[in-house]
């Protein structure tokens, strides 16, 4: 068993554990490489049939290529896809010009909260990884959020020996993170090994590519000639630039990501 096998098995174990313990589950699919890998692993865990819906929180600022890719993959893999927007905030004119913190919180965090409330989801799978940024490094695999959606990162229950905390109060929902131990390089190595289709925005065109996918106004491509998965892997082996360098919300102010996440951001 190699390193990718070990990660795959760990993720499958988490999926099956969550499915056994929670009735109303959903998976957040951001269309990016991580949550698409997550979807692939869910298909493996449940022998091809994903037993819960996928949720895409559409801020309306996503690149058309992402939407095209989303609809194509959803159809091909016959998944149950729920697309949700915070229509109220959008009607009121929410956009990044109002401030990135405010916009992310309204269109993503509150957008997620709305869809959880509407469908009564008790558990949500998310494709976050510990190596992405500091506050994600502190996450548990099963991570509760209270009724106000807040993350009490100062007092998290212990998690050991794959015995997850799976019973929570009625007003709590749980975030489940099967990819927590993966790195960016693991994800790309696995995408290559398994032949998982990725959004074309990751591949270089005219000397630029996206390393992390987000909303058009707040996400910038990096200079890169990596136009295949193989070339991306070679690039990542030598890069010294962090993955989320092109994500504006990470750099707006000190601790912004931590504040967003303690309020329920993904």
């Amino acid at each position, binding site marked *: 068993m190699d390193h990718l096998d070990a990660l795959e098995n760990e993720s499958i174990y988490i999926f099956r554990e969550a499915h056994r313990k929670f009735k109303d589950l959903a998976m957040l699919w951001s269309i990016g490489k991580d949550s698409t890998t997550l979807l692939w692993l869910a298909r493996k865990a449940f022998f091809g049939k994903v037993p819960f819906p996928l949720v895409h929180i559409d801020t309306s600022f996503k690149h058309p290529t992402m939407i095209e890719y989303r609809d194509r993959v959803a159809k091909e893999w016959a998944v149950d896809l729920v697309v949700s927007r915070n229509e109220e905030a959008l009607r009121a004119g929410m956009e990044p010009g109002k401030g990135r913190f405010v916009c992310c919180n309204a269109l993503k965090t509150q957008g997620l909260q709305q869809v959880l409330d509407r469908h009564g989801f008790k558990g949500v799978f998310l494709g976050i990884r510990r190596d992405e940024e*500091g506050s994600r490094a502190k996450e548990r695999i099963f991570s509760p959020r209270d009724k106000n959606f807040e993350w009490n990162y100062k007092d998290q229950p212990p998690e050991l020996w794959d015995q997850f905390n799976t019973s929570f109060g009625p007003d709590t929902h749980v975030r489940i993170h099967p990819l927590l131990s993966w790195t960016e390089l693991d994800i790309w190595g696995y995408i290559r090994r398994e032949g998982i289709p990725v959004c074309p925005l990751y591949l270089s065109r005219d000397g630029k590519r996206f390393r992390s996918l987000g909303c058009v106004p707040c996400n910038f491509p990096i200079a890169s000639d990596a136009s295949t998965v193989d070339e991306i892997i070679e690039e990542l082996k030598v890069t010294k630039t962090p993955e989320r360098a092109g994500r504006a919300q990470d750099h707006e102010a000190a601790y912004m990501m931590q504040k967003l996440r303690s309020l329920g951001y993904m």
Partner: protein
Amino acid sequence: MNIDDTLRIVIVGHVDHGKSTLIGRLFHDTSSLPEERYREIEATCRAQGRAFEFAYLMDALEEEREHNITIDTAQTFFKTSLRPYIIIDAPGHKEFLKNMITGAAAADAAILLVDGAEGVREQTRRHAYMLSLLGLRQVVVAVNKLDLVGFRRDRFEEVEEEIRGFLLSVGLVPAHVVPISAREGDNIATPSERTAWYSGPTLLGALDSFFPARDISGLPLRFPVQDIYVGDGKRVYAGRVESGCLRAGGRAVFSPSGKKAVVRSVEKWKQPALPEAHAGECVGVTFTEELFVERGEVLSEAGEASPSAREISASLFWLGNEPLRLSARYVLKLATAEVEAVLSAITERIDSSTLEVVERHANRVGNLEVANVTFTLQHPIAADTFKENPRLGRFVVVVGEFVAGGGIVREVRSDRLGGGTRVVRLHARMMTEPDGNFIDLSREAGPVEFEISPGFVARLGGGEKVAIRLCTADQLEKIARLAFGYGLGMTFRRGPEGNRVVLSREGPVSQAPAEEGFPVI
């Protein structure tokens, strides 16, 4: 797992002994730090009017930066020429022990940091003890901050002797004890000229000598049922092979139910007919006959099944805010089994820092204490001792919604009502003959458990004796334990009638057993 597969390491030790600084240093010296991160940290430090702090890399959360402590477990990644590492930073503050345990439980190996100036402190000892309770055996000690003591050999050796002595008392032998300065980079990646008297490996060299420890080979098959998926006209039993090898066509037995089955197929998605699956693999299994077993049952090969445990004695660490109480009910989770259990004995309560036995036969175990305890389970589950099979020999205790403690199984007592074990009520088998009381066990060749009644103990207390004719040496041992527990005298004789023991009692009768674990009917 190969030597060049990722190794997960945890860094533990007393607060302020330099964990976060060491991590920053490891990153820097292995060129694993993205330049932008370095600049970010530099900017933050400058804004706060401080010198550059490596610790900020790991202490990404705001509170931690402000208070200079690590609150939770964080994981991050670096690489040597040998292999990649996942590094788990564990907080040194006493209040955060549950985070330290969360970190250490996921690790293959540990670095125990000791401040060379301060020496071994409370959390140094507590963390070392927890490593041993978590079953971590690959430990390297780094004696840090030697720059503060002028890289003096005699000071290093003093600390080395102290920590080696403590580790030995909890059953740990460090692979190496390395003199370092995390802040100045001595003996991290390259040997330091300032410790010319030291001939061992650098810290990274010591880490490279460890093995990824997640692979369990050479142990018998254990496949706990995680879930059952019904569809396409078949029942697929999903689970992970915890140890050994699961083979298609193999004969197998479930614990604790004792149900037997033949494996028809071992499956993964798009791989419906695997010949076998090894430790760590998540698979689905079908059987040749219709079978109904539930989550929590453990599949083994016939003849080497997990015992069906009705009672578990364990070493336990307690993290709950409320104390663990004698006679209270808890939920235990062991592999995929979940069972309600009564805490039937607290044999010893131990201070997790000094290792002192605080109390014997205690009523409660407090936050951060360690204890040797016995749980009586409401229904039997499959369990091994930690020594025999770590994967099936560890469990957590759940209070309300959350994990509040964990333990490793020292001893398993079988289900008295199943698994082929006969329960023999000694009082009911006693015959009174002219030459005294007599119990004949000479035909009880199979596994047995004994029970005795208070009346039986009282009769012996009244001056009567009972002779018991034995069949097996196992019976001798069990009766000796019984005698010990009830404070009875025992003599063993080998004569023409075979092997016999005589039980008797002198002095006042004790109605309650002196030792836990002996049923009174």
